[in-house]
């Protein structure tokens, strides 16, 4: 199997600036074109283990990130995103090219892939049981995800939990984990082995760095998992660890609030979400210490928390 890592830097750059790099992420095929050199470096690092498909087949998402032309090429250069020729977003400073690629890849899925109920949530699996972590930014979801990944958990997704409408299983979309601000140093200290992209400052979300997804998770990207738990995490300085059961009706409403396409799916969304809630135990979770949280997740996944 051809992977990004097996391409030379020159070959990767030639594909990206030519007919495109056709990258498989989970169930999706992305064709990415770009002439932005730092973006090429980040793709080489973060996507080394991902399969590369030949050009000329069917593609789900056609993405293009180009550097400004004209005067802007030299002064305050920007990166412009196009989705197959349309430009849904304003350009960003050139330094933000790689985070922009991640955001626009997410946008393609959340705005189009209506074969899934798409929950704004991280999802990890161990022993065949998936734990879903829906949470607004700042709740420590990605930090907890990044910590667990060093300890035998499989990454299904850091950002988008895809619940397949046909059968209710969680379809993996393992991609780099987005870390913000202080999380970056916390994970660097906690997991010295972690591979991180170069931090990008002054984005709308603050400083951003991405953690490379584990190779084993990428290798099992076509293997779905059954949902077992839904945990709403909240990091709070100095708080004692606390896991509280959440009544199903409230869990339903809170997950609905965290969905990208619950409204779009209509009755099918209601059915899918109902199935997900039926299949899962739901909790709210407060923590301040990562090791304590990880120990609790080990018990949770074995069903004896």
């Amino acid at each position, binding site marked *: 199997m051809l992977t990004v890592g097996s391409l030379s830097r020159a070959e990767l750059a030639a594909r990206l600036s030519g007919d495109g790099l056709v990258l498989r992420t989970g169930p999706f*095929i992305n064709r990415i074109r770009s002439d932005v050199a730092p973006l090429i470096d980040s793709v080489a690092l973060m996507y080394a283990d991902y399969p590369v498909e030949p050009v*000329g*087949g*069917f*593609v*789900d998402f*056609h993405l293009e990130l180009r550097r400004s032309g004209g005067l802007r090429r030299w002064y305050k250069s920007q990166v412009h995103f196009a989705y*197959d*020729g*349309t430009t849904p977003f304003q350009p960003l400073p050139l330094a933000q090219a790689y985070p922009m690629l991640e955001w626009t890849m997410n946008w393609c899925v959340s705005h*189009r*892939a*209506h*074969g899934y109920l798409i929950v704004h949530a991280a999802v990890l699996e161990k022993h065949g049981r998936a734990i879903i972590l829906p949470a607004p930014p700042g709740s420590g979801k990605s930090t907890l995800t990044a910590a667990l990944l060093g300890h035998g958990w499989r990454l299904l997704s850091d950002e988008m939990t895809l619940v397949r409408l046909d059968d209710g299983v969680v379809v993996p979309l393992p991609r780099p984990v987005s870390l913000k601000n202080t999380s970056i140093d916390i994970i660097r200290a906690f997991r010295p082995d972690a591979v991180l992209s170069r931090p990008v400052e002054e984005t709308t979300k603050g400083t951003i760095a991405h953690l490379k997804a584990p190779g084993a998770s990428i290798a099992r990207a076509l293997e779905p998992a059954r949902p077992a738990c839904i945990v709403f995490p909240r990091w709070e300085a100095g708080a004692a660890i606390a896991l509280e059961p959440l009544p199903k009706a409230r869990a339903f409403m809170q997950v609905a609030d965290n969905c990208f396409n619950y*409204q*779009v*799916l*209509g009755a*099918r969304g209601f059915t899918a979400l109902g199935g997900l809630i039926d299949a899962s135990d739901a909790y709210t979770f407060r923590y301040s210490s990562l090791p304590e949280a990880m120990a609790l997740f080990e018990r949770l996944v074995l069903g004896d928390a």
Partner: protein
Amino acid sequence: MMPLLIRVLRDPGTVQGLDDAGWDLLLRQADAANLDAYLLVLLEDAGLLDAVPAAPRAHLEWTRVGAAAHARAARYEVRQIGRALDGLGLPLILLKGAAYAMAGLDAGRGRLFSDIDILVPKARLPEVEAALMMHGWITTHHDAYDQRYYREWMHELPPMQHARRGNSIDVHHAILPETAPVRPDPARLCASARPIPGEPHLATLSPADMVLHSAVHLFFDGEFDKGLRDLVDLHRLLTQFGQAPGFWEALPARARELELGRPLFYALRYCPRLLGTVVPPAVQAAVASEGPNAALLWLMDRLFARALLPLHASCADAASGAARFALYVRGNWLRMPPLLLARHLFHKAFLSGKSDTQAA
């Protein structure tokens, strides 16, 4: 060679020979032309959906979900507008996409639209605007120049957007600007409007007027990013209404009555050429005199042949950009006399704030 999407629109069976790359191109062109939901309807009606390979089939099913959500939201929005205007004693005359959808026309199936367009008598505009504001719609163009542009020169109020739901409504009092050289009498349009069966408070224009409005909207406008979608509207309206006795015979006369012979001429020229629409020869003969002179027609053929294609890189040639620009200038020319147009373009280019121009 015609773009793949147009070949499929003419003959859906074309998809049977497609490989993966062909499906990729077809869905991209359909997406760019805002015709992806129509493509789904077309393939389903032709019984071809089950033969679509898994990956493009998944995209078509995603489209089905999005289109159904859109239809639900549009229906809801029309009901809300109906409630807001209830008590004014006006029939709610829907135009374009909303009319096709609510009247259950073929042209409404798989037809997405971002705004809801309604037609009200000019004398009643203040009441309508006030009622909509009372129910949460607010005007979107706050710049004094834009307000004047719409209120003095255009055929509609500045678009209004619902404060909570974000949906937009365009309140028209005519189908062409006040400043345009031809002014189809809106009173005649309203007089011929007909109620939607089963929807006592809703109405559409008459079939002939729906066709003429669609034609004037497409061929007198300056922007062709949805040109093919609008041509498909015309094709579907003509194909459905054309089956009713008397429709074809009355169409050219109605066009003349409303001073819309020229846009009808173009509609009946390019629908058959691009989409294979069947138009009776007698009707073609009846509108032949409405066309431009031979030199101008030669030029228009070349401009429309480009502007009516999907707005996608695979459908562009070296002259596409110039053709679209020429039609943009023409579209403005048809809306305003030259001095007013010069003033308007000058204002847009140099005086409007940057954020305003992005919103406009």
